[in-house]
């Protein structure tokens, strides 16, 4: 339909289409998306066109449409809205234990399916997710030479792994570990078929791996565990001494499966240091635009991402 359009215009058209679909059910949310996304530069639209096309191709292969993914996304948004109201009332996340979340979410195929499809769309619909993805791309690119063994923990939809496969040219193994059957199933479909990939259904705390890793990615998992210091320390056991880790995690981000409440970027840094890592490069992105003093007062989500190297003692 848009064969004659340039990449920027066709990306803009694809994004507008998604926002219009969102607006049919949730105009309040659509308004926010429009305000944030239409303010982004051409590079965003250039990225968004092919990205949405990729999602659409994956959906079509599974007998779904983009409308289905938008529905999933809106279910996720309704959950987040509800959790947000509760969070502002209580100052806490509603879930406190891993067992609870494992039952409520990871082990529940229905919830996990809409959640992961929704999260996949959020990579292109949330300006802060998009910016973080770009940070990941540029940081991985710089570090890609020499990576042979690559791992992703809690890969969910598989989108980061799919990108790493294309970027880490010398990679010999790409292993994704995730505790949710629904996530693994989705990732196996979403990630291009490649003999170098392996998908492991396991709790990262119980998982064992023979080969040491050059690079480990772990997007939005630290807030899902009871003890994030122990989680990062666990990753260290998979990592070579000169290996690197990329993590992301949000502050003040109520969700059905979030347990550990990070209250600030500094709080996250403390956890990183306590687990025995130094921060090589970091980025923090607020999910709302308002004057700095209001961001903290309103407990706005900050998405934090960093490349870490193990501290050698």
């Amino acid at each position, binding site marked *: 339909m848009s064969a004659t359009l340039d990449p920027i215009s066709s990306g803009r058209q694809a994004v507008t289409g998604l926002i219009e679909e969102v607006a049919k059910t*949730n*105009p309040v*949310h659509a*308004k*926010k998306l429009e305000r944030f996304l239409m303010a982004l530069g051409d590079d965003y639209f250039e990225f968004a066109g092919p990205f949405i096309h990729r999602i659409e191709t994956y959906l079509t292969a599974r007998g779904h449409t983009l409308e289905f993914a938008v529905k999933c996304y809106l*279910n996720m*948004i309704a959950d987040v*809205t*509800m959790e947000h109201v509760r969070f502002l009332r209580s100052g806490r996340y509603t879930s406190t234990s891993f067992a609870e979340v494992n039952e409520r979410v990871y082990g529940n195929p229905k919830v996990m399916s809409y959640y992961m499809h929704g999260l996949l769309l959020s990579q292109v619909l949330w300006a802060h997710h998009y910016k973080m993805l770009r940070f990941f791309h540029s940081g991985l690119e710089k570090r890609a030479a020499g990576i042979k063994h690559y791992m992703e923990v809690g890969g969910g939809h598989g989108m980061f792994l799919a990108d790493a496969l294309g970027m880490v040219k010398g990679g010999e193994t790409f292993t994704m570990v995730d505790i949710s059957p629904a996530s693994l199933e989705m990732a196996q479909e979403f990630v291009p078929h490649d003999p170098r990939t392996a998908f492991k259904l396991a709790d990262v705390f119980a998982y064992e791996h023979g080969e040491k890793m050059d690079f480990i990615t772990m997007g939005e998992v630290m807030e899902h565990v009871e003890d994030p210091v122990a989680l990062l320390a666990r990753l260290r056991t998979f990592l070579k001494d000169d290996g690197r880790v990329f993590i992301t995690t949000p502050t003040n981000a109520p969700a059905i499966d979030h347990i550990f409440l990070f209250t600030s970027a500094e709080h996250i840094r403390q956890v990183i240091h306590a687990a025995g890592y130094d921060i090589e490069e970091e980025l923090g992105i607020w999910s709302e635009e308002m004057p700095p003093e209001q961001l903290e007062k309103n407990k706005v989500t900050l998405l934090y991402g960093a490349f870490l190297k193990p501290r050698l003692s």
Partner: protein
Amino acid sequence: MRSDLLTRVTPVFRNNFNAPDLVLNETMTAKDVEGWDSFAHINLIMALEDTFNVRFETSELGQIGCVGDLLTLLESKGV
């Protein structure tokens, strides 16, 4: 009565969106009210819950398209 409910909801909107002169009608959507986006929406929901002493469900939160939808929702909760 429905128009009565609209009158009772109006001050909550005016307060929440800092718009003392806002005149609400049932067909108004987020587009028509400055500042009504998802962040302000959370505060609106909380203010409505507190004012009318009700609690919304997750499935209800995703389907508020216009002011009229909100009124219907409140009515269904006995307001």
